[in-house]
C-alpha cells in the first residue's frame, strides 16, 4: 500500500503523463464528466461517474479494421492494425472495472480480437473506490464491491491523501515509476474509507434488488412472458441505453467507399435498432418488443448461460439515468425476477 498526498495529485498526474498517455474524468462544458487526456491544468472531476463508460478505451465507438485499394484489376489489402500506445486510465469505478472482464470474455476468447487485445495489453487501469454512490447504483447486486474495485491499481480517497494498492505487475510498474512521490500507505485509513462506502451501499434503494428467477437456464421461462410487451411499450428504440452501457458489446462491420478504395470499419451497434443483425431475408427481430427483450435477456439470461452464471450487467446505473423514458434493466428485473414485487 502506498500513499499520495492530495496536494501532490497534479504532480503525480504529470509524472505519469511524462511517459504514458493519461486519461481521467474531467467536467466538460455541460458540467458532466467525460474521460479526457490529461494536460497540465486539467482538474479531475468530482462526479461519481462519466456519462460514457470507460469501455471506449478498449472498444471504441468506431475504428478502421482494414483498407482495400483498387488499382485496375489489382486489389491491395492493407492491414491498418497498429500496436496501441501505452496509456493509463485513472479514476475508473468498480462497476466499469468489472465490465472489462465481461468484454474480455467476448473479445479475448477464441478467435481473439487482436484490435481489442492490443489496447487491453497497453492500458493500465487505475480504479478509484466510490465515496458517494448514487441512488441509481446497484453494483452490489452483481457481487461488485464499490469499496474494493479491481484494476491494475486500486485507489482510495481518504482525508488529504490517496491510498494506492498495486494489484498486478503492470500496476506495480506504474507505481514504481512514480515512486518518488509516494509514501508508505495507511491500511487503517483504507479500511475506514471502505467501511463508510459499504455502509452507504447497504442503504442504497437498489442494493436489495434480487436476481432470483433470472440467470442461467431461464430462457424458456422468460422468453414468452407477456410483460415484455408492456415494458417495451414506451421504448423509443433509440439505443441510448446500449451506447452508454459499459458491457454492451455488439458491433457492426461495414465497408465505406472512399472513392478509390474501401475502408472496412467497425462501429458500435445496438440490438434496439431496426437494422441490427440485418440479413438478406430481413431483420430477425421485427418489432421493438423483440429488440427490447433481446437487450435484457442478453444481460440477464443468455450471458450468464454462457459464463457460469455471471450477469452481463454491472449495475452502473447509466441506463437508469440516461433512458429518455426511464425504462431500464432494474424495472425489467423487478417485473421478471422472482422476489422483487
Amino acid at each position, binding site marked *: 500500500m502506498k500513499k499520495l498526498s492530495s496536494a501532490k495529485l497534479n504532480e503525480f498526474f504529470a509524472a505519469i503523463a511524462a511517459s504514458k498517455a493519461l486519461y481521467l474524468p474531467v467536467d466538460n462544458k455541460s458540467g458532466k464528466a467525460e474521460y479526457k487526456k490529461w494536460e497540465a491544468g486539467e482538474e479531475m472531476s468530482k462526479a461519481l461517474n462519466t456519462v460514457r463508460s470507460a469501455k471506449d478505451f478498449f472498444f471504441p465507438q468506431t475504428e478502421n479494421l482494414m483498407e482495400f485499394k483498387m488499382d485496375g484489376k489489382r486489389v491491395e489489402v492493407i492491414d491498418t492494425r497498429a500496436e496501441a500506445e501505452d496509456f493509463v486510465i485513472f479514476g475508473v469505478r468498480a462497476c466499469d472495472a468489472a465490465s472489462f472482464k465481461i468484454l474480455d470474455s467476448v473479445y479475448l476468447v477464441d478467435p481473439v480480437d487482436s484490435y481489442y487485445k492490443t489496447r487491453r495489453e497497453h492500458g493500465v487501469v487505475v480504479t478509484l473506490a466510490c465515496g458517494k*454512490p448514487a*441512488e441509481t447504483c446497484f453494483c452490489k447486486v452483481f457481487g461488485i464491491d464499490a469499496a474494493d474495485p479491481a484494476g491494475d491499481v486500486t485507489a482510495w480517497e481518504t482525508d488529504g491523501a490517496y491510498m494506492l494498492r498495486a494489484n498486478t505487475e503492470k500496476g506495480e510498474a506504474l507505481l514504481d515509476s512514480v515512486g518518488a512521490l509516494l509514501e508508505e500507505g495507511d491500511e487503517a485509513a483504507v479500511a475506514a474509507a471502505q467501511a463508510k462506502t459499504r455502509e452507504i451501499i447497504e*442503504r442504497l*434503494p437498489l442494493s436489495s434488488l434480487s436476481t432470483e428467477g433470472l440467470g442461467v437456464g431461464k430462457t424458456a421461462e422468460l422468453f414468452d412472458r407477456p410483460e415484455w410487451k408492456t415494458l417495451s*411499450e414506451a421504448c423509443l428504440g433509440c439505443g441510448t441505453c446500449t451506447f452508454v452501457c459499459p458491457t454492451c458489446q455488439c458491433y457492426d462491420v461495414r465497408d465505406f467507399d472512399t472513392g478509390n478504395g474501401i475502408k472496412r470499419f467497425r462501429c458500435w451497434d445496438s440490438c434496439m435498432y431496426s*437494422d441490427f443483425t440485418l440479413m438478406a431475408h430481413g431483420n430477425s427481430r421485427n418489432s421493438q418488443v423483440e429488440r427490447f427483450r433481446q437487450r435484457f435477456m442478453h444481460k440477464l439470461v443468455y450471458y450468464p448461460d454462457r459464463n457460469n452464471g455471471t450477469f452481463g450487467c454491472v449495475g452502473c446505473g447509466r441506463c437508469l439515468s440516461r433512458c*429518455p423514458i426511464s425504462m431500464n434493466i*432494474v*424495472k425489467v428485473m423487478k417485473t421478471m425476477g422472482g422476489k422483487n414485487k
Partner: protein
Amino acid sequence: MQEMMKKRAIELLANGTCDRVLGWTNGDFAYDQTPALFRTEQELEEGFVYNGFSAANLSKYLVKECRAGGKILVFLKPCDTYSFNQLVAEHRIKREMIYVIGVACDGKADVEKLKEQGIDGITAIKEEGDTYVVSTIYGDKTVKKEDVLAERCVNCKSRKHMVYDELIGEAGDVIADCGRFDMVEKLEAMTPDERYEFWRGVLSRCIRCNACRNVCPACTCEQCIFDNPKSGVAQKAAANSFEENMFHIIRAFHVAGRCTDCGECSRVCPENIPLHLLNRKFIKDVNTFYGTYQAGEDPAAKPPLGRYEKNDIEPGEAGGVKA
C-alpha cells in the same frame, strides 16, 4: 391534480369514451417516470402518476396508437398540444380517434438540475407549494421549484393549450416575451468562427444514440434515411466528426417549419447538447422571412416552407451567398 386526472380517466374509460389511457407511470425514485398505457381502472389506480416530473411529451406515441385502432385518451401539457396539432396537420394521427385532456402546467423539473446542486442518493421527492422536498440517503433537502426548472420550461412559449376536449386545471396564456430566442441572438452576434467553435464544441459530445431523433414528434418517417442501409447515406458510423455534426444540421433542416419547439430533443440528450438552439434558429428565421408562424398553433394553417408565393425571399437576399 393527479387524483383529478385519474378520476376523470376512470370515468371516461367506464363510459366508453376511450378504451385506453396514455399517461405516465412511476419508477423507482419519484423522478423516473415512464409513458404508459392504462387499460383498466385497476391499472390506473395502481400506476397512474402526474407531478412535476411527468415531463415526456406523449403525442408521438399516438402515431403508433392510432394504427392500433380504438379510442385513446391522452393527457397533454400545453407544449405537447402543439406537437399534437402538427401531427394532425401532417396526417400522422387521427383527431377523431383521440380524446385530449389538456393539463395545466406550471413547469417541469429536471432531475439533472437537482443533481447539479449536489443532491444525490434520491429516494423520494414531495411537492410542497413552490418547493420540492427531496429525501436522499444522505439526508433531506428542500429546493425551490424555479431553481430546478427544466431548460425548456424556463423559456416556455405558452401555457395555453392549442387543442383539447376538456381541460383540467386553469387555462394559461401564450407567453410572448418568453425570451426563447435570446440565446439564438447571442449566437447570431458571434463571429462565424466563434459560432463554428460553439457548435463543433457542443456537438463533439454527441454519441449518436439517436435519442433526440427518436423522441422528436416531427421525426416520424417510417424509416429514417440514416438508418436505411439502402439509402447510401446510412450512418452507423460517420466518416469523420464533421459528418457526425452534419447529421444534426440536416435533421434541423428536415424539421424546419414543423418543429414546434417542444424541447424533447434537448430534454433527452444524454450529453446535454442544446439541440433546441438549432431548431430555434430556424424558427426565428422562418418568422423573419415568411412572417410569424408557430408550428402546431393551427393545424389548418399553411406551412411556410410547404407553399410558394411569388414574393418569397430569394436565395442570398438576406445576406450570405447569392445563388
